[in-house]
């Protein structure tokens, strides 16, 4: 059952969200995401790579990867790395992640415990 949030907690959460979204790192990330979503070539390249990698993993599990298949994955990876829109998106995402870590450190220092670790749903 989800806990009921106090008004103060709700307001503080919304304020943090609003400020994160208005930060330079997240504005850049949103802009890069919008550009990627609008670019058919870039999206098609990523879809192709995703499908080829899934196929590749399946072939590896079955013990039969040919040199031609290895070459085709490498070729597609190089195409992805040459695509400026994809690379700008990847870099902006990394910068947003770094900023989020910085903010989590701030929160965790004040709490005395790692907030992200407590917020994690995964269990061992």
């Amino acid at each position, binding site marked *: 059952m989800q806990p009921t949030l106090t008004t103060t*907690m709700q307001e503080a959460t919304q304020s943090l969200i609003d400020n*994160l979204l208005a930060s330079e790192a997240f504005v850049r990330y949103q802009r890069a995401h919008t550009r990627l979503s609008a670019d058919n070539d870039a999206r098609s390249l990523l879809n192709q790579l995703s499908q080829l990698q899934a196929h590749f993993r399946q072939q590896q599990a079955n013990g039969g990867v040919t040199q031609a298949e290895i070459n085709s994955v490498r070729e597609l990876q190089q195409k992805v790395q040459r695509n400026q829109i994809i690379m700008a998106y990847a870099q902006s*995402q990394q910068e947003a992640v770094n900023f989020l*870590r910085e903010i989590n450190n701030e929160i965790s220092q004040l709490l005395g415990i790692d*907030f992200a*670790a407590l917020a994690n749903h995964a269990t061992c």
Partner: protein
Amino acid sequence: MDDVAFDNLEIASVEVVKRAAHDFAAALVETPQFKTFEQTADRFRQDQAAQQALQAYQEKQTAWRALLMLNALSPEQHSELERLQAAFINQRIVQEYLTAQTDLATLCQTLGDALSESVGLNYAASCGASCCG
């Protein structure tokens, strides 16, 4: 959103975002879940019986680590380890501590989910959180 729209956005400085993070942490510290967790954790640290039971369990775990990893404990050793674990877990303060920790984690997960959904990144995963330490 196009570039013009982005250019018209007012960018929040790092200091402003950090201030919002401080306010967020301050609000979290004032929640009943956080207060209960802190109080319970303090009582757990002060409870000699619980600390001794924890130490006895951990010492045996450390001594038998190699056997545990090989899954090679004898039935008697298994029973001994289970007995020590139960002696620790069944302490009232340990139960209270675990409940308080679960309640705080549930609250933090709710807050983390709200952050993740709004910013478009998985908060816990992005911050490198791992349940395995």
